[in-house]
């Protein structure tokens, strides 16, 4: 008997909110899509005020009880949970209403990083996307996001990732080809594009030649390339070093037209070398006749 009563009371407690929502003085939808038109039916007669209140939007409307109040499409457009209140001189009725984001994506917030990186980096490029509807509500239902990274020559990497709670991310390898890559995120008909600059990596090696010229020696590198064959851009510094009788002379020279060159004193027995960053070139020992 006690168990039966407990069950009965529990059932009533659980059922009560549903009864209010469906059979109270306000007959409002429990859920609508953002920007969708909807109606609220009230019972009784006389003047009343209808309020729809939430942190993201507030509506107030003078109504006649017993009539249907229509809300035009676009009026209630911010996703959220709302309290619906019908207030007249002698009564207050309440209901709750959920507004969900519209299903059609309209805007992507696409963050791609970095904007520039060397070629050939595994998972070096990341992209993160948040998907919004036309009213800037985050669309939280899963949606497939296509990410595509394409090089100027047309090579592409593509991935499709479903959003969780409105967000999706991917990681892509930087390719072997220098240049401006297009990184595109697409959801439905909405796309967003970012440009990712791929620059050559470190030189794969430095090969230097030495040509005596009177009291000096002319040092020059061969055109510098990374390990994928991309030309190292002008401006990168090559450091030439001459070691002679425990003294060391270093000169930093920027690449011009792919090569670095410098004239240094020609000391018999001097050791000449070139380096750029962590890459060492060959050494030449100067032997004069």
């Amino acid at each position: 008997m006690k168990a039966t009563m407990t069950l009965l009371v529990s059932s009533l407690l659980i059922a009560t909110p549903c009864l209010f929502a469906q059979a109270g003085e306000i007959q409002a939808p429990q859920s609508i899509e953002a920007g969708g038109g909807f109606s609220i039916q009230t019972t009784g007669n006389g003047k009343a005020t209808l309020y729809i209140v939430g942190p993201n939007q507030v509506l107030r409307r003078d109504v006649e009880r017993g009539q249907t109040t229509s809300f035009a499409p676009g009026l209630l457009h911010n996703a959220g949970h709302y309290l619906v209140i019908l207030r007249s001189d002698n009564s207050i009725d309440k209901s709750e209403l959920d507004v969900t984001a519209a299903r059609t994506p309209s805007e992507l917030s696409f963050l791609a990083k970095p904007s520039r990186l060397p070629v050939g980096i595994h998972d070096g490029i990341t992209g993160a996307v948040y998907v919004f509807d036309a009213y800037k509500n985050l669309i939280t239902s899963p949606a497939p996001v296509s990410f595509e990274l394409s090089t100027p020559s047309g090579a592409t990497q593509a991935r499709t990732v479903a959003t969780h709670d409105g967000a999706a991310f991917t990681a892509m390898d930087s390719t072997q080809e220098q240049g401006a890559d297009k990184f595109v995120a697409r959801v439905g008909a909405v796309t967003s594009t970012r440009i990712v600059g791929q620059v050559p990596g470190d030189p794969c090696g430095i090969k230097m030649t030495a040509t005596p010229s009177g009291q000096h020696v002319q040092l020059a590198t061969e055109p510098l390339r990374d390990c994928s064959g991309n030309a190292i851009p002008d401006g990168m510094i090559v450091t030439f070093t001459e070691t002679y009788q425990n003294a060391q002379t270093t000169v930093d020279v920027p690449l011009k037209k792919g090569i670095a060159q410098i004239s240094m004193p020609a000391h018999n027995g001097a050791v000449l070398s070139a380096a750029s960053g962590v890459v060492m070139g060959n050494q030449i020992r100067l032997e004069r006749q």
Partner: protein
Amino acid sequence: MILKSLKCLPALSVLVFAIASQAASQANVRIEPPAAQQGPRELQEQTASAAIRDYLQSWQSLSAALKQNRSDLLSTYFAGTALDKLGETMQEQVRAGLSTGYKVSSHDIQIVFYSPEGLSIELTDTVEYDMKVLEHGKLIANQHMRTRYIAVLTPAVEQWKVRVFQAMN
């Protein structure tokens, strides 16, 4: 792999709870382990704590702002779309002669996404609160609500700011 450090949550929970207890006016704050699909970037405890602390503070500022219809109280913890929408709500409240009070009794928070470049954190929060609606200072309705919110935060100069803020029941 993600948020390995956060899998051991007691330290974080204690820290955030301590902060949150002050920030959220004694609301119970529960921090869930991060979601599995989180993102490739490891989220440090300090970062997570700071984001959650600022998110909880944002509720304080939201509550005060909507109660007093003072939009200047919002900009410390809100930015972008969230700030715009809350600002519009405030204008609508003023036009309708309304003010609203949100007294939060509990938060149940889970970080669900940390973007790879570290520039956004997304969390969900099942919030229980008492909502009061006043017209010209007179109470017209009071309702206890339990709602799941979603928020996206981005780092600003001094704290994390809420950029997306919406309920998603």
